[in-house]
């Protein structure tokens, strides 16, 4: 009996590793998720049914009920929620995982308080579980907007650190003395919850994904600790996997945002201020990176490239052609939209693109491409600015008012590559960059597109 369960756990562990690995590549990610999920299912079923305990039917019924309720709710939420609300959902679920770990600790404490190792794991499980739970809930609140403002607590760092040290000391005391007090345990739980709140509350909304990833990693560690408690390998290895992969992921996410983990957690309060133009608030800028941009384009059906003066300045005509060829080869339908005054001389874009041997039939005039944007998945704007500035339609006070422009706003998603937030020839702000459908890919066009091509090649 026992051997069977152990083998099931072994298999589950392997599915976790393989699943996680496959989750790291766009083509295999879905499969990876399924593999890990089936491993998890196996482990759960095995745990319930393969043992030699005499368990009263009531308990089985309770377990079944609990699983049923959890499954149905989880499933429904997951398939109903809007795409944009998914990250907050992840946070919520993660909090539940943490809560589960804490609850286990609450139940097991009195039974194991005499054994130092066991007591240590339990206490650690309760603390970590509590922190993840409350932290995740705060993160969830911030992301779904119920917790709007960034709370600035005076003396934040000292208070926080003090609390942390206090919790550790408290836990050490409990383990050392071996006191069997549920009350103290609940106190510990409460302080863990408090720390979780304090930890996440001052962090800006834009940094939430990083925080969630970090908390997720903590849940993994809580699971592993519980695994040590039960001498259960699948929990141990699975938990550690999540813990270490989670840390790496957290660091990668910080890097992708050009932040350090430290600056996210302490100090810097994320989420830029909203830019204001004229009387209008423009909202905030979303920036992206070559890797993301590459994946989006790779999985798009219709891509339109809008070249502008910046393409010429960067001399990126050869790279853009390489990008276009590569996308075409992968079945993406690519076109160039040529605005009549893009660049600094009539036909500037034509000279440029002819040099890199872009086929003439790939170039589409403004009047012909404008109706097609609504059907376009991604517009890649490279070093263009005025020629895609909606102010030409909207703002009678603008010097470019009345100039026909490329209506890239109508596309499903817009990626804009430029070096920074400088204005173009007309010297004016561009609302497009603040559009919720727009992602900015900052950098010199040649360098950024070269990276983009390299990312595509790796896919």
């Amino acid at each position, binding site marked *: 009996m026992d051997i069977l369960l152990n083998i099931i756990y072994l298999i589950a562990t392997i599915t976790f590793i393989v699943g996680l690995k496959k989750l790291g590549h766009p083509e295999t990610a879905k499969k990876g998720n399924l593999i890990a999920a089936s491993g998890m299912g196996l482990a759960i079923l095995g745990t319930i049914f393969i043992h030699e305990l005499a368990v009263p039917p009531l308990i089985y019924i309770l377990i079944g009920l609990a699983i049923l309720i959890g499954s149905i709710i989880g499933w429904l939420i*997951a398939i109903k929620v809007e795409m944009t609300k998914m990250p907050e959902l992840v946070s919520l679920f993660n909090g539940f995982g943490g809560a589960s770990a804490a609850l286990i600790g609450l139940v097991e404490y009195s039974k194991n308080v005499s054994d130092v190792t066991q007591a240590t794991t339990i206490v650690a499980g309760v603390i970590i579980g509590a922190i993840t739970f409350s932290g995740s809930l705060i993160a969830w609140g911030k992301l779904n907007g119920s917790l709007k403002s960034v709370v600035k607590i005076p003396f934040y760092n000292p208070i926080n650190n003090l609390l942390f040290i206090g919790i550790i000391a408290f836990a050490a005391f409990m383990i050392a003395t071996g006191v069997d007090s549920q009350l103290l345990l609940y106190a510990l739980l409460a302080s863990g919850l408090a720390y979780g709140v304090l930890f996440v509350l001052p962090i800006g909304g834009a940094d939430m994904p990083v925080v969630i990833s970090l908390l997720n990693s903590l849940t993994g560690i809580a699971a592993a600790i519980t695994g040590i408690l039960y001498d259960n390998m699948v929990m141990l290895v699975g938990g550690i996997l999540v813990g270490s992969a989670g840390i790496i992921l957290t660091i990668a996410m910080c890097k992708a945002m050009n932040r350090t983990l430290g600056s996210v957690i302490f100090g810097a309060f994320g989420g830029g201020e909203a830019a204001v133009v004229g009387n209008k608030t423009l909202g905030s800028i979303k920036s992206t990176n070559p890797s993301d941009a590459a994946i989006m384009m790779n999985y798009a059906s219709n891509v339109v490239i809008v070249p502008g003066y910046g393409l010429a300045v960067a001399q990126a005509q050869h790279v853009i052609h390489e990008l276009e060829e590569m996308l075409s080869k992968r079945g993406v339908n690519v076109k160039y939209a040529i605005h009549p005054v893009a660049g600094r001389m009539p036909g500037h874009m034509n000279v440029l693109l002819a040099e890199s041997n872009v086929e003439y039939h790939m170039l589409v005039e403004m009047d012909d491409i404008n109706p097609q944007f609504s059907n376009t998945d991604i517009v890649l704007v490279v070093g263009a600015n005025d020629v895609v500035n909606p102010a030409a339609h909207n703002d009678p006070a603008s010097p470019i008012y009345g100039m026909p422009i490329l209506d890239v706003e109508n596309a499903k998603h817009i990626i804009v590559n430029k070096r920074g937030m400088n204005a173009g020839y007309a010297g004016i702000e561009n609302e497009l960059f603040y559009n919720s459908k727009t992602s900015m890919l900052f950098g010199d066009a040649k360098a950024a597109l070269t990276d983009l091509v390299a990312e595509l090649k790796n896919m």
Partner: protein
Amino acid sequence: MTDFLQFIEDNLQITYILILSIFVGIEVIKSIPAVLHTPLMSGANALSGVVIVGAILVMLHADPADYLALALGFVAVVLGVLNVVGGFAVTDRMLQMFKKKK
């Protein structure tokens, strides 16, 4: 410190398992494209729901008369399952966008 060394001594193989698992976790994840960050986080989150195994064990070992333990265990299982099922399902939905083109 000595406690720590003692733990290693007592659980030498567990220590190796811990360290090897950390390496596997790191190696398996490094250099993933940024657009997979969120799905991967979500997937890892579902995996962390493995704590459910512990919650089930609590229930299995619980004294049918210990209502508190039963109640706590019950909640723990519900939450754990939520984490697991919801986690995998959400991940799967996120990954819809990577469907191969026809």
